[in-house]
C-alpha cells in the first residue's frame, strides 16, 4: 500500500493519540512513530498569543508536497501534518507532525525534515499579541530556519 498522507489546516486543536491511532491502527509494519508539536511560547512573559495567517489552498498543497517528499526520502509508512490558524494563546498547540516508519531513525528524520520545510516553505505567518493587550509585530523569518532546511540538501 502507499503510505497514507494526512494534511489539515484548521482552527481547532488536535489530539495526538487520536491522530496516531488513525494512522497506525491495524498496521503491523509500523515500529516507530515520531511526533513534533509546536506550541505558543510566552517569550519570557512578553506574549499573550499569536495570530496565525495562512494562504488557503496553497498551504495545503505545499504541505502535501513536503509530506510526499518526506515519505519518498525516508520510506515512511505514513505522515500527518496539521497546522492551526487564527488566534493561538500561550501554551496552546500550533502545529503537529507525525511520521511513522518501520524503524526509529527514519521516523525521526521524516518528522524533522517535514518541520524544517514546513517552517520555510508553507505559506503561514505569525503575528504577536503582547501580554499587555497591544497589537504586536509580525514575526520575522529566522536565518536559523533556512540553515536547518539546508541541512537536507545532498
Amino acid at each position: 500500500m502507499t503510505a497514507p498522507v494526512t494534511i489539515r489546516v484548521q482552527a481547532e486543536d488536535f489530539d495526538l493519540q487520536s491522530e496516531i491511532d488513525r494512522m497506525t491502527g491495524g498496521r503491523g509494519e509500523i515500529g516507530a512513530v515520531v511526533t513534533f508539536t509546536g506550541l505558543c511560547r510566552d517569550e519570557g512573559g512578553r506574549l499573550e498569543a499569536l495570530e496565525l495567517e495562512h494562504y488557503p489552498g496553497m498551504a495545503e498543497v505545499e504541505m502535501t508536497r513536503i509530506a510526499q517528499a518526506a515519505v519518498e526520502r525516508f520510506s515512511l509508512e505514513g505522515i500527518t501534518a496539521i497546522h492551526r490558524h487564527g488566534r493561538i494563546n500561550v501554551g496552546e498547540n500550533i502545529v503537529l507532525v507525525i511520521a511513522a516508519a518501520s524503524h526509529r531513525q527514519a521516523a525521526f528524520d521524516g518528522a524533522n525534515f517535514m518541520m524544517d520545510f514546513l517552517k520555510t516553505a508553507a505559506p503561514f505567518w505569525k503575528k504577536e499579541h503582547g501580554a499587555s493587550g497591544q497589537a504586536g509585530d509580525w514575526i520575522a523569518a529566522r536565518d536559523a530556519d533556512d540553515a536547518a532546511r539546508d541541512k537536507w540538501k545532498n
Partner: protein
Amino acid sequence: MTRLVYFAWVRERIGKAEEDIVLPASVRTVSDLLTHLTSLGEEYEAALQFPEVIRVAIDQEHVEHDEPIAGAREIGLFPPMTGG
C-alpha cells in the same frame, strides 16, 4: 484580469486582501509586476519598497522574481513564511 492576493504585512500595508487588476503588456515577469505595483500609490510603495524580501506564488506555487507571469490566474505576494 489577474487576481492578486496579499498576506501578512503586505496585506496590511496595501490595505486589502485581494484585487483583480489589468496589467500593461510591458509587465512580463514577477519583477516587472512588483515595479508596476509600486507606481500605483504610496500604500503599494510601503508594502513593496524592498522587493527582494517579497515572496511570490503563481497559481499557488512558489516562483522566483524572474518568472514570467503570462497565463497566471492568481498571483500571491507575501513576506517570508514564519509558520510551524
